[in-house]
């Protein structure tokens, strides 16, 4: 796509004065992308540097900041049990919600990829929760999780089962969040899976059939390998999203009961805007950022071993 200039490329690589037309093109590029480059500076670059600096200070936003070096980081890692608790909660949530979501949505998309009548309607139904997600869904689920007269325990009651206290029970609060997240995010991933499934050439299945492959073998040897780029994408996005869970804790549980849903971002937010410990909160933000970077880098790095790209064959 970008090879209009390939003809003169070999010499052009060396430092050469741009032609008038090229200079004009460059000016146009910077003119058009200017707003965003400015935005990158104002809303990303400067705040990022500022945040790193703030994390080395003690600051309440009202009185002057006091430089404390790495003390905030030291406090977090060595003297703050809640820091570890919030990491644990976030990690547990991610470890369960992301893979479960992937498997559930993949199975669902296989079902929704079948050629039967009325499939459009079914696809829409499964996508509905993803469409409306947000605070209203969280409020709805608080009502569903109500231990006495909520939907879940009502239905369990029909079968003679006394349901747990869900978000009010320290043991069940986090699993409740996972259940809610499955309900509300599965449909969104399904769309991406379906796009991936559509991209698998039918000839591959035909070839597999000629080789005598059954349904399961076709799934294992054709569908899964061809879907690995999609798995990869959904996995990375899922991890980044899950690690930043915030609203669920803020709206539904305030981190409780007994800190069982103390999500990292909620804990951070609490420090920043309840306790006005901006330095500490910034340090937490950087810890999270580095964690996300490390995890993503790990997935990207490992992807060479398990993600199959069609284009690479050539």
């Amino acid at each position, binding site marked *: *796509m*970008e090879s209009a200039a390939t003809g003169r490329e070999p010499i052009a690589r060396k430092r050469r004065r741009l032609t008038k037309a*090229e200079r004009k*093109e*460059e000016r*146009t*590029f*910077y003119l*058009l*992308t200017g*707003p*965003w480059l400015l*935005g*990158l500076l104002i809303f*990303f670059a400067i*705040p*990022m540097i500022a*945040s790193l600096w*703030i994390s080395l200070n003690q600051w309440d*936003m009202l009185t002057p900041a006091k430089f404390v070096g790495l003390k905030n980081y030291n406090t977090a890692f060595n003297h703050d049990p809640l820091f570890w608790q919030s990491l644990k909660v976030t990690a547990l949530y991610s470890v369960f919600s992301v893979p479960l979501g992937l498997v559930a949505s993949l199975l669902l998309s296989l*079902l*929704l990829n079948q050629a*039967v009548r009325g499939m459009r309607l*079914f696809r829409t*139904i*499964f996508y*509905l*929760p993803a469409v*409306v997600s*947000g*605070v*209203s869904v969280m*409020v*709805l689920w608080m*009502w569903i999780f109500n231990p006495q*007269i909520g939907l879940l325990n009502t239905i369990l*009651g029909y079968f003679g089962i006394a349901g747990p206290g869900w978000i009010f029970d320290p043991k069940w609060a986090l699993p409740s969040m996972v259940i809610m997240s499955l*309900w509300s995010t599965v449909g969104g991933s399904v*769309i*991406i899976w379906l*796009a*991936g499934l559509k*991209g698998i050439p039918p000839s591959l299945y035909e070839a597999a059939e000629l080789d005598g492959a059954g349904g399961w073998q076709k799934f294992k040897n054709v569908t899964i390998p061809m879907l690995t*780029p*999609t798995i990869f*994408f959904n996995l990375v996005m899922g991890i*980044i999203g899950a690690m*930043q869970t*915030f609203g669920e804790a*803020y*709206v539904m549980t305030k981190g409780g009961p007994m800190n069982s849903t103390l999500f990292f971002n909620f804990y*951070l937010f609490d420090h*920043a805007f309840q306790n006005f410990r901006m330095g500490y*909160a*910034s340090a*937490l*933000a950087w810890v*999270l*950022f580095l964690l*996300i970077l490390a995890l993503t880098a790990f997935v990207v790095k490992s992807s060479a071993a398990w993600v199959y790209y069609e284009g690479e064959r050539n």
Partner: protein
Amino acid sequence: MTTTNRGRLLLKNSLIYVLLAIGSLVMLVPFFWMLSTSLKESYQVFTWPPKWIPDPIKWSNYKTAFTSLPFGQWFNNTIIITVLSIVGAVLSCVIVSYGFARFKARGRSFLFILTLATMMLPDTVTMIPKFYMFTKFGWINTFYPLIVPLFFGKAYFIFLLRQFFMSIPADLEEAAKIDGASTFGILWRVILPLTVPAIVTITIFQFNDSWKDFMQPILYLSKPELYTLTLGINFFKSQNNVQWNYLMAASMVTMLPSLLFYFIGQKYFVESITLTGMKG
């Protein structure tokens, strides 16, 4: 086709429908529960066993929910913020991504990679400095912090639109250029009409982002008359004596525009995701 084959197909299809029906039930029952609660008399909300179909059906709950608290005002606030955010995001992202897609410059790839990298950055990293900055601007308790940044562009949309622009052959623009059209003229008359699906898609995405945004309104809007719907619902919920029927009615109404938007844009939306999908 033999009868056993047809029998197997029938069995397979029935199994598919059974599974689809169970799944649909799981997806839909919570909504039905919500609707049902929203139409109950207040005293019926807590009766056991719960009635699935309220008797009487109190449509007036919706009116009460919207008049007892300023939900109407919050609705308006949310619409103002959402519409202006969409305008800002579409305007800026179309122009910026056109630059990325069509004009060569030194540093272009670097800047593009930088743009993608910002998508990995958690909001909380820039949250405190941005809050401080907007405080200094005197923008606390205004809608500006929620709207103005979008006029500078948004990484994901720039990525999406750039992919889209690059799938449009350049011949059309070459022809227009020979006819003496300016860069903006070409963008406006030649490119934009072809980009409608992608623009609809980012409109839907931005609608969702603004409509459901929660963290930013918490930070920047503390006066009740400036609340957005998400803040309003959260406020409603935090009251000591939660009236679930009204709360469900308000949540229901908050969800409706999302549904409406989705159904209008569905066709384009799925198409664009498929196009820019993860083809590696």
